[in-house]
């Protein structure tokens, strides 16, 4: 087991190194002068410009710049933002809380909605209820996260006034609408997988045995079948958690919540390279870590995977 985890971590580090080079290069595909955009509209002497170049290591060649960034990143120092004149690590530290809270909340919320919906449509397979749920999930999947968010905001914050219409800060009341918006997209896939798993389990022999032994239906469905149907759901959910980080970017931008997503998007718009590359690397890192955990989880359950 330890050997398996070690091997996977080794692979992950390798991928991270390649990804970091890729990110660094991609951000700089089109040559542009950050100092020019930093000092845009202001009358700045050549001397100051040169000082800025030296301050941000822009006088060095790309390879050296990369090495400075990556050695710093490993130690938790992502360099300094061009725009905020502040350490990127500090910027990330201030904002990551909102993003994490949003992702965790909507992850839990999506499970709370998706699992009952999936079980229900499995029990009532091919009835009007199942069809209604499948149409609803189809619509929620097709509805882009920002549209769901806008409709929620319009109805519940602006028209009904149940929630504040300013979403900055991370009080529970501010987080509810964004979390629902992000969760709605996850619900679809999770409930479909729950449904498929439940149908498979409910048709298996041990369920027939349990039923013929006279166990109550509720117990058969919720304990016996559900337990076994849960395994694929857990995997899918954990993978979703990673990708929800990107969904959070969109939601944060709509509700102007001031999370990592806001930071990333303004970074892209203002060519703030240190911010863009560092936030991206962080998100990829988190995503890979979650994938690693899922793999380990799988290996614990299924010994065949460990052997490969």
């Amino acid at each position: 087991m330890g050997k398996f985890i070690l091997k996977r971590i080794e692979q992950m580090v390798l991928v991270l190194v390649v990804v970091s080079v890729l990110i660094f290069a991609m951000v700089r595909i089109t040559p542009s002068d950050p100092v020019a955009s930093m000092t845009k509209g202001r009358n700045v002497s050549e001397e100051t410009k040169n000082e800025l170049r030296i301050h941000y290591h822009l006088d060095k060649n790309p390879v050296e710049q990369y090495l400075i960034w990556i050695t710093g990143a490993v130690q938790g120092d992502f360099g300094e933002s061009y725009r905020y004149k502040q350490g990127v690590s500090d910027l990330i530290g201030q904002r990551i809380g909102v993003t994490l809270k949003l992702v965790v909340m909507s992850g839990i919320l999506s499970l709370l909605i998706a699992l009952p919906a999936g079980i229900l449509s499995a029990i009532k397979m091919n009835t009007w209820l199942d069809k209604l749920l499948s149409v609803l999930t189809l619509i929620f999947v097709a509805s882009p996260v920002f549209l769901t968010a806008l409709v929620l905001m319009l109805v519940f914050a602006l028209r009904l006034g149940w929630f504040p219409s300013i979403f900055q800060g991370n009080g529970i009341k501010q987080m509810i609408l964004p979390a629902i918006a992000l969760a709605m997209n996850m619900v679809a896939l999770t409930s479909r997988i729950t449904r498929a798993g439940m149908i498979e389990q409910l048709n298996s022999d041990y369920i027939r045995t349990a039923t013929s032994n006279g166990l109550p239906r509720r117990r058969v469905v919720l304990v016996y079948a559900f337990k076994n149907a849960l395994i694929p759901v857990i995997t899918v959910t954990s993978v979703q958690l990673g990708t929800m980080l990107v969904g959070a970017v969109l939601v944060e931008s709509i509700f102007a919540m001031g999370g990592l997503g806001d930071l990333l998007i303004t970074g892209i718009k203002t060519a703030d390279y240190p911010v863009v590359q560092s936030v991206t690397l962080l998100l990829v890192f988190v995503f890979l870590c979650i994938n690693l955990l899922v793999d380990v989880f799988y290996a614990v359950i299924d010994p065949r995977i460990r052997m490969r």
Partner: protein
Amino acid sequence: MFSAIFGHAPLYRSRKRKTGRLFTPAVAVSFAVLLILIFTCFFASVLAPYNPNAQDLYNRLATPSARHLFGTDQNGRDLFSRILYGGRTALTSALGVVAISMIIGVPLGLVSGYKGGRADTFIMRCCDVLLSFPSLLLAFVLVAGLGRNTFNAVLALGIVYVPMLTRLTRSLTLVEKNKVYVSACISLGYSERRIIFRHILPNCISTILVQITLDIAYAILDLASLSFLGLGTQPPQADWGAMLDEGRAFLLINPLLSLIPGFVIVVTVVALNIFSDGLHQYLDPAQTALPGFRKYERKYLKKKEVETDG
């Protein structure tokens, strides 16, 4: 973000169909909707009552009326015309994304699957690296480097979609290459290129086609996300995602500005999903029972009975 969350798996699967028809009611309706959308968007210049960028500053944020079917936006531009032109941008961009991913992804997958060995390992590792980005994030970074406009958004998403398509094609090729007809081709001395593109590709293409109709739906959603964030199509040009973003500031005064583009996106994507599902079931023989087998059985068995009776 949808491909980010769901991978490129189909999101909608109806029950097993009983006959081998393509146009079941659901598929026929979605196909009609798609045809109407394509027709109206590509003839936008003829059908649109106004120039999409013509401003009528006396008539700002107007509610729907006979003159302006969907009303007007904050600059007095006709929303209906902008929806049509925006659809043209959205549909052509989505097709562009899919075309790019297909041109790169399919040949890579074919070569990777057929040749195996080092080429395969190399291509698969590259895919792994690209897939280690939660998908839209890669598009963000690419757009950050390339610059923000429609073309770059299309290019970025095209690249983002490549690894999934490569993997799909590779897995299909791996199955095909062990079939008898490939051995026959090899024994006839055909070149590798001919075997891959003339013999294996046609046998994989139907599955790839289904995936591509789905990818168009995802591309529309992802492009709208990029435009919404201001990373894709830039403001004066009409685009569904960008219009949603522009209308957001006037949510309380005239919510239709955001809701109509959103509604159109949802309808398009749902229609594409249902159509793709229908196509999948039509092209995949395992999904359909023999067409009308029971009917024939009844017919001929009855006939036989009649014959023996007589």
